[in-house]
C-alpha cells in the first residue's frame, strides 16, 4: 500500500462517521446519506494528492452530494410517499433526548434542502457566512437570508411541537 493510500485510509477512518451525520442532516435519510458520503469520498480518493485542505473539501463534497441525491427522480417519488406517511406531529417519546432528536429531525425535514444545508453547515459545522457561501456556491446574501429563514422556521416548528407536547401531556 502506498503512503498516499495509507494517508487516505487514515483520513476516511477518522472522518467518515462525522461526514455521515453531516450528510444525514442535509438530506434526512441515513441510506441516502451514506451513498452521498461514499460518492464524495470516492471523488476525494482520485484527487487525494492534490487537495490542500481535505477536511474542507470532504465537507463540501458531502453536502453537495447529499443535495444532489435529493434531486434524483426516485428520491422525489420516495419522498412523496414518505411525506404522506409522516405524522403531522411527532409523538412524544418516553425519553426526552430521543424526543428532542425526533422533533428536530422532523423540523429539519420541512426546510427546503438548500436552506437545510445552510443551517447545517453554519450550526453543525460552525462555518462562517462566507465559507458557507463558498461551499454551496451561493451568494453571501442568500446564505444570510437562508440562515434567518431557516432558524425562524425551525423555531416556529419546534415551538409548535413543544406546545403540542404540552397539550398532550395536559390531557
Amino acid at each position, binding site marked *: 500500500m502506498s503512503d498516499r493510500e495509507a494517508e487516505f485510509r487514515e483520513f476516511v477512518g477518522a472522518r467518515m*462517521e462525522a461526514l455521515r451525520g453531516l450528510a444525514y442532516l442535509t438530506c434526512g435519510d441515513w441510506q441516502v446519506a451514506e451513498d452521498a458520503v461514499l460518492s464524495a469520498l470516492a471523488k476525494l480518493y482520485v*484527487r487525494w494528492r*492534490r487537495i490542500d485542505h481535505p477536511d474542507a473539501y470532504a465537507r463540501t463534497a458531502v453536502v453537495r452530494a447529499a443535495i444532489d441525491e435529493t434531486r434524483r427522480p426516485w428520491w422525489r417519488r420516495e419522498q412523496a410517499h414518505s411525506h404522506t406517511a409522516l405524522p403531522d406531529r411527532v409523538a412524544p417519546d418516553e425519553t426526552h433526548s430521543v424526543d428532542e432528536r425526533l422533533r428536530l429531525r422532523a423540523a429539519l425535514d420541512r426546510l427546503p434542502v438548500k436552506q437545510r444545508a445552510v443551517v447545517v453547515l453554519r450550526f453543525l459545522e460552525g462555518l462562517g457566512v462566507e465559507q458557507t457561501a463558498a461551499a454551496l456556491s451561493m451568494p453571501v446574501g442568500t446564505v444570510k437570508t437562508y440562515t434567518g429563514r431557516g432558524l425562524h422556521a425551525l423555531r416556529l416548528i419546534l415551538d409548535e411541537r413543544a406546545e403540542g407536547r404540552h397539550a398532550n401531556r395536559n390531557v
Partner: protein
Amino acid sequence: MRTEMSDLLHQAAQDPPPPRYDVEDVVRAGKRRQRRRRTGWAVGAALAVAVAVTVPQIVTHPPRRVQPVTPTPSVTTAGKPRAINFTFGGYTTGRFSVSTPFRWTLAGMSAEIRKKGGDPASPEGILTVYHPGVADPIAAEKGVKRTATSPIGGRPAYFGTDQGGFPMLVWQYAADAYAVVAPRSAGPGDYAMTKAEMRQVAAAFHLGNATPVVVPFRMTVVPPGYRLVLAQWEPTEGLPAMIRFLPVSVANPRISDVDHGPEPDPHSAYADQLRIEVVKPVPGEFAGDSSSGTQCPEANHGGRCYRWLPGDKYVVEALCRVVVKDQLAGLVDRIEVADPGNRATWLPANRAFPASAQVGG
C-alpha cells in the same frame, strides 16, 4: 440560539444505524472512479483491470527528475498538424440521447449516453468512436470473450465481455473504423443498458460534419518533446477542461486509450505526462486566491503548480513530475485563459497549442 442550535443538530445526528460502508468500500469506490475516469469505460474493464493492478505500486519515494525540460517557445516544424476535430454530433434514438462528444484523444472521441427519465447525475453509458485506422481496441485485450451479434449497418459487430463480466458492444462503423458502447455498471451483472439498447444506440450512430475541438486556454510554450494526446471537459465534475500531453515516444495514435489517469504506473513512460487542467474548485481544494500568483505546493513530492484566475472561480493547474518547479511555474504563468464558463470564448485546439506540440506538427 447558535449554541442551542448547534447542540440540537449534534443531537439530531446521534444514534445512527450501523454503517453500510467502511473504509475498504470507500477505497474500492475511489479506485473504480479512477479507472472510470481513466478509461471512460470505453476500452473495457480488461484494460481497467490491467491498470488497476498497478495502483498499489505507486511510488512512495520522490519521483525521478529526468533531464530538466526547459519550456522554450516552440517552433513550427515542416509537417502540418493533424486536424483536431469531432466528426460526429449528438443524436437521439428512442428514449436515448447521445451527447456531443466531451473527449477527444489521438485514438478517438467519447460521448455520454443518457436516457429520458434516467439518473441525471450519471449517464447510462459511454459511446467511444475510434478514428479510422485505429485497430479494434478490444480485440487485443487479454481475457475478453467475444460473442457474435448480427451486423450493424451491414458491418461486423460483437459483444465483448471481460473477465469480470463487464459487457461492451463493438462494431465497425466504417471501413477500418471501430466504435464501442459501454454501459454504466453498478457491480457485476448490474448494467444500465441491455444488449438490445446498446445495439439501438449503435445502429443510430452516424458521422457528421467535422467541428473543431475547443479548449478554454492557449499555451504559447510546451516543453519540447511533448505531444497533445487528449482534450476533454467534464462540466458535472467541476473540471471544465483537462488536457494531456505525452512524450512523443508514447504519443501513439494507435494506442486504445491515451488517458492513463492521475496516477499512472510510475514505471511507465505515461508517468511523465504533462496535464493542464482548468478546475472549478471545491473549497479546500486549492490554497490562496487570485492575488496569490502561481503556487507550487511541495507536499507529495511537488510536481504541480497552479494559479487562481481573476474572479476566484476557477484555477488553472499544471502537473508533471519531470518538469522542474520553476519551469512548471513559468508554464502556468504563460497560459492565457479564456472564460471557462463560456464555451463561446474557447479556442480551437489546433490554434491553442504550438504546432510542434501537435501530432503531425
